[in-house]
């Protein structure tokens, strides 16, 4: 099948052009692309249906002005940026995706998905947002509905065995990723948070199971043998928690590491939050087992968010954390509100805690680095 490139393709920078050509190639060889936004997306199901799942989370302010022609100004930059990429055809993965999969997480995303559906077919999974009224049954039913939809719409068959196989592979990927991140438990840690994050991001765009595992293993081995073990000797050990931070790394993680700290642990999505829990692949009902795995994610859209409150103390101990920095995106109601509870938790652990709220612009970078510096001077 032939695929066309977006109209303004020739105006794109080389890296972006290369991205478009790569995904176009993937599609022309018969690949199907699912655009996803969230750690709750049950990737096992997409794997079993033969999709490549790619994160479409917008991490740059480039497309925000375009998005603001449809979306409110006072909204999380991740949502605006993501929508902006879809609107302007600037992201190859959004542009070539056969399907976008969203979940009912925060209000902003829910409403954005409705509008996204006018640009690209968007399927919504209804995520239960608490633990009181049998979320496992609700979420399992949602996953079954999704399986049925994929089978009918894309003319595929998804068997339990395929799901089990996908879950086994995803578990291996998660474990391998976790092992890489766990290198940071060493004192001093072999890597800086910036370096670690870059490796995590890179792996997101490697699409086959074998390649991904090989790459993660290779990374770990190279860190074990090559990293300068003393580059962060004496640095204060920081855990970062909060919203997805791919779009604000420079103002936060880099600033921490420029002020005598080192990020040893990312509790966020694309860090621990996405890799910690495994699917019970031996369970009788594999769909239910997948559902159970995802319900253990400690995201603030859950109320109350007991999993995060359990995870933070555990990580503080395992990674010997000296201070917690919460990085939240502006106008993210769930996370910004939860800072109050996280602060109480940090106080009870006797661990200093700093929360900052920021967006994708550079206007507050001076202020933010002062805060990071002051926080580190305090430790």
């Amino acid at each position, binding site marked *: 099948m032939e695929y066309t490139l977006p109209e303004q393709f020739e105006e794109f920078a080389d890296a972006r052009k290369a991205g478009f050509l790569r995904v176009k190639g993937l599609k022309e060889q018969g690949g199907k692309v699912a655009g996803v936004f969230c750690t709750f997306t049950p990737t096992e199901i997409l794997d079993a249906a033969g999709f490549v799942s790619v994160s479409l989370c917008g991490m740059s302010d480039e497309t925000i002005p375009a998005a603001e022609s449809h979306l409110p100004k006072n909204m999380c930059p991740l949502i605006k940026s993501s929508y902006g990429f879809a609107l302007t055809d600037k992201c190859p993965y959004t542009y070539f995706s056969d399907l976008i999969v969203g979940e009912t997480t925060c209000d902003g995303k829910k409403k954005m998905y409705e509008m996204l559906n006018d640009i690209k077919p968007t399927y919504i999974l209804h995520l239960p947002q608490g633990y009181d009224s049998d979320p496992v049954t609700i979420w399992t039913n949602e996953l079954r509905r999704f399986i049925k939809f994929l089978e009918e719409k894309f003319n595929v068959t998804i068997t339990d065995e395929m799901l089990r196989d996908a879950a086994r592979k995803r578990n291996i990927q998660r474990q391998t990723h976790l092992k890489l991140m766990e290198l940071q438990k060493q004192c001093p840690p072999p890597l800086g948070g910036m370096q670690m994050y870059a490796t995590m991001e890179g792996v997101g765009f490697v699409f086959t199971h074998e390649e991904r595992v090989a790459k993660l293993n290779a990374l770990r081995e190279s860190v074990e043998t090559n990293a300068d073990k003393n580059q962060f000797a004496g640095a204060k050990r920081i855990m970062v928690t909060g919203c997805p931070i791919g779009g604000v790394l420079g103002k936060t993680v880099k600033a921490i590491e420029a002020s005598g700290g080192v990020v040893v642990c990312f509790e966020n999505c694309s860090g621990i939050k996405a890799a910690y829990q495994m699917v019970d692949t031996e369970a009788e009902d594999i769909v239910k087992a997948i559902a159970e795995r995802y319900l253990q994610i400690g995201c603030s859209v859950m109320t109350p968010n007991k999993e995060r409150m359990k995870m933070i103390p555990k990580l503080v101990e395992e990674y010997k954390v000296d201070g917690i920095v919460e990085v939240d995106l502006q106008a993210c109601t769930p996370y910004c509100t939860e800072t109050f509870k996280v602060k109480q938790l940090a106080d009870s652990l006797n661990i200093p805690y700093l929360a900052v709220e920021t967006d994708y612009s550079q206007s507050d970078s001076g*202020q933010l680095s002062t*805060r990071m*510096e*002051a926080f580190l*001077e*305090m430790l």
Partner: protein
Amino acid sequence: MKYFIGIDIGSTCAKTIVMDENKQIVHRLLQPTGWSSVDTAQAIYAKLEEMGINMKEANVVATGYGRISVPYADKCVTEITCHGRGTCFVYGSQDLTVIDIGGQDTKLISVEAGMVKDFIMNDKCSAGTGRFLEVMANTLGLRPEELCQLAAQGSGVSISSMCTVFAESEVISLIGRGEPKQNIAFAVVDSIVKKVASQAGRLTLGKTVCLTGGLCEFDYLCESLGKKLNVTVNTNPDGRYAGAIGAALSAMNVRK
């Protein structure tokens, strides 16, 4: 004689403190930051030399948002740490809460045993800062200190908007309505106090609360802040130098 110099380049004023090795303050300098903190830093250097201080010998620590513009500083320390240290020095206590209302931001710092334990800074917004007061005073045709004095006689009016731009238009419409100036002044101070108090809600206030920064000599502001927070707010003429004093104290630990 060896000198220890702290330079605090804030958004509106640059403060310099010169200490001798017995921690005696021997000089205080105050000047507007102007549009270039690099030029300000150079001017301070020249001035200190002129006063007979051997700048090559002296230990210099810079702080404040312009701290990186002081090329001759031996070290930069953030204003949070310096304000904490300097306030302890000025008030002779090791356990206190600092409220610093600066030109561009407001900071609350809690200090225990002489060490910063926790702090809060306002986000991208000028509500509850010196800048807010300045803009409102301007609109009323007053100097900031006059506004604060006048506010003591006012009552009964409030400004609801926290945003400087919207609050300014509220003030203009109050003027248009013929509201007496002292009542508007009251509303302005009240708005700052409310904003600072709501920030303070996120921090455990110590027994001793000290105001620093350029507004600390405005008695009525201190008084209403104290009422709102239910504590006595201490002030001191050296309060506006707290950051520079903290920097000078840090300079004592610098090894050259």
